[in-house]
């Protein structure tokens, strides 16, 4: 273990973490006021978003600069990898809460409501449902856009891996092309999803208020979509760095962290496809 001789890189004092916390405070405060009909909240949120944007650029920027200056060697790199892995683990549990909700509602509470004839006479308690007092709606079919989106995301997983191979074998064009393709597929996915949402709201009577079906549908696919968006932004940043030539075959944690994230988002989608759309 030769790297142990060199010492671990402990960064200097940094204003970014506290600024980020402050920005999140103002954002949360603004949001809380906004949803309680206090219109000042909006201005808080706008200011906070600007601050948070500034911090993210600054913070990530300084990490990248440190990396370029050769501060991060194998030892530090391992910390980043473990950190990212455990972060994704926590994200898995976040989605688990919503999947657990879906299973509970489908298999326990809706059938039970169907048996509670004393309160909900005539309610059948079968899935999909908007509940005993809910509005009518059409459930989302699996084999149209969702199936197409599955294909798109699966191909994007292939393309990002292809880009990784390019990086390892120092084929710049393959790296950049693969990343660009992945981002394009991600955007295509989001476009289809936006279309699907629009269709659901305007023509199918399917919205957040459409009982537990609508609620679980939009919360699960919505949080997934949000993660795709974050992943795509991450990929775009990585693409920019790839163009600048930041990555070498043995120092490219930035790339791999985003790629892991992308694969995680992909797996979540497969679960969604099976349990939300298909079954």
């Amino acid at each position, binding site marked *: 273990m030769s790297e142990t001789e060199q010492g671990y890189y402990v960064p200097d004092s940094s204003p970014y973490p506290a600024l980020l*916390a402050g920005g*999140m405070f103002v954002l949360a405060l603004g949001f809380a006021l906004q949803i309680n009909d206090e219109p000042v909240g909006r201005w808080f949120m706008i200011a906070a978003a600007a601050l948070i944007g500034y911090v993210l650029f600054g913070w990530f920027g300084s990490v990248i600069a440190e990396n370029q200056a050769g501060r991060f060697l194998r030892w530090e790199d391992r910390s980043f990898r473990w*950190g990212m892995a455990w972060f994704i683990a926590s994200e898995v*549990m976040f989605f688990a809460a919503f999947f657990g909700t879906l299973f509970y509602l489908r298999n326990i509470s809706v059938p039970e409501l169907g048996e509670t004839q004393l309160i909900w006479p005539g309610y059948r308690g079968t899935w999909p449902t908007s509940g005993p007092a809910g509005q009518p709606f059409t459930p989302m079919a699996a084999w149209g856009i969702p199936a197409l989106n599955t294909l798109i995301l699966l191909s994007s997983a292939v393309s990002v891996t292809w880009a990784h191979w390019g990086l390892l074998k120092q084929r710049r064009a393959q790296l950049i092309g693969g990343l660009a393709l992945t981002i394009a597929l991600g955007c295509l996915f989001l476009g289809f999803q936006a279309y699907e949402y629009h269709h659901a709201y305007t023509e199918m009577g399917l919205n957040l*208020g459409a009982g537990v079906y609508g609620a679980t549908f939009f919360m699960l696919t919505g949080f997934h979509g949000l993660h795709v968006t974050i992943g795509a932004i991450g990929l775009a940043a990585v693409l920019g760095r790839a163009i600048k030539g930041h990555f070498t075959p043995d120092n490219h944690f930035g790339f791999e962290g985003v790629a892991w994230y992308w694969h995680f988002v992909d797996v979540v989608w497969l679960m969604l496809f099976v349990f939300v759309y298909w079954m």
Partner: protein
Amino acid sequence: MTTADLALHGSPHAPPRGLMRWLTTTNHKDIGTMYLVFSLVMFFVGGAMILLVRAELFQPGMQMMQPELFNQLIGVHALVMIFMALMPAATGFANWMIPLMIGAPDMALPRLNNWSFWLLPPAAALLLMPFALALFGVGSGAIATGWTFYAPLSVQDGMGLDFAILAIHLLGISSVMGSINIVVTVFNLRAPGMTFMKLPLFVWGWLITAFMLIAVIPVLAGAVTMLLTDRHFGTHFFNAAGGGDPILFQHLFWFFGHPEVYIVLFPVWGLTPHILSAFARKPVYGYRAQVYAFWVIGILSVIVWGHHIMTSGMSTGALLYFMYSTMSISLPLSVLFFCWIATIWRGAMTFEAPMLFALGMIVLFGIGGLTGLVLADAAADAQYHHSYFVVAHFHYTLFAGGIMGIMAGVYFWLPKMTGHMIDEILAKWHFWLTAIAFNLTFLPQFFVGLAGMPRRVPDYALQFAEFNMLSSIGAFVLGAAQLLFLIVVVKCIRGGPPAPAKVWEGAEGLEWTVPSPPPHHTFQTRPVIGE
């Protein structure tokens, strides 16, 4: 300055001074100190709130406040004590001690570490702000549903609840980021030779805590997010009319909530053997057994949550499952108790303040744990549930097990951190007053609960009057005793007899090989662990 030093510090700039130093620091000791100070402040905030409550409960009748305020005070008391006093105290110790104990130069992700801390004051501000806003006519005050957020009461509640949800989100991010940092530090920054089975038990306790936090905090975040959309965006997760179920919220909450009680105690269970072994001058007994017991408790903790909702009308099968699985947690805990007692057995004990607190913690937590075992019985739980019996149970675990354990840690490590010895005499007074007043406060609550007094009531029937009066008197003595704690801590920070590197005669471990207080950057060259 050598190049190796340069690599270690980043660059030779001196850190900023004054407030900026604390806002921008990346040093694990600075951050640990901030956690500890924050926790101390919030302990008094949470305590002051509950003293108001105990004053209202001093005798039957409505004297001081309306039920609205009462309901806000109990819930905020609980959230403050658990999330802002107990957890940050444990995290403060983790920051200070884990790098020292495993021979690491700092925490693995120092900036993230700073962020984790600085999310806490905003969270506290969000939680407490509605009290102030209500004075200016905005909203109706803080969260009024108790700390459990049960829907649909929480769907009905005012804007204080939204503030609490967002506070929970910030706290959650802080905890998860802090946990990731700890896991990474333990995995990646151990000194050569510090194998997993040589890790000090405190580090083991925290490692399991971190795993649990990463597993359950996101579920709480999901649950309160659904609550938020039910409140403001028209979803029906917890509303039967739309096919939802209020009990779903309870399942999600307690899937987090039960592990949470071990999350707050694992750091204490980790540090207890250190103290026992130091003051009994004898090595820890059953190291491996304790590590395995930690694992077993950690795993069991996520499968027993149903014991909090046994009156919600679960099926008989579910009741029995949750009853037996809950009972089985007493087995690994009995292993811990056995090892603790075997650690002091045939030692040469002295009874400085940390030891007193550790021993007191064990006895009183024993009462809390054993009553927990009784609560687990699904049929009898129908009697205990939501009565003061439960309140007594969880203060024996949370205050006696948690806070007293943390105080043992403070007295144990404060000389290391400040370089000054503590005022033993005052600290002993603090211990005895705390132990006696604590029992005076909470022992009567067992009886009053059995006799049928429900919790979360601002007023009660006459038959409960005497016990409540005793309990209130106890609470005020207990509160006063904590002022002694404050004095000891402040005195120790400001001066006192100098502390040697090895503060306690029998203490073992890397942290006792560095000077007291340790230099700002501790292990500039990595220590190598023998054997």
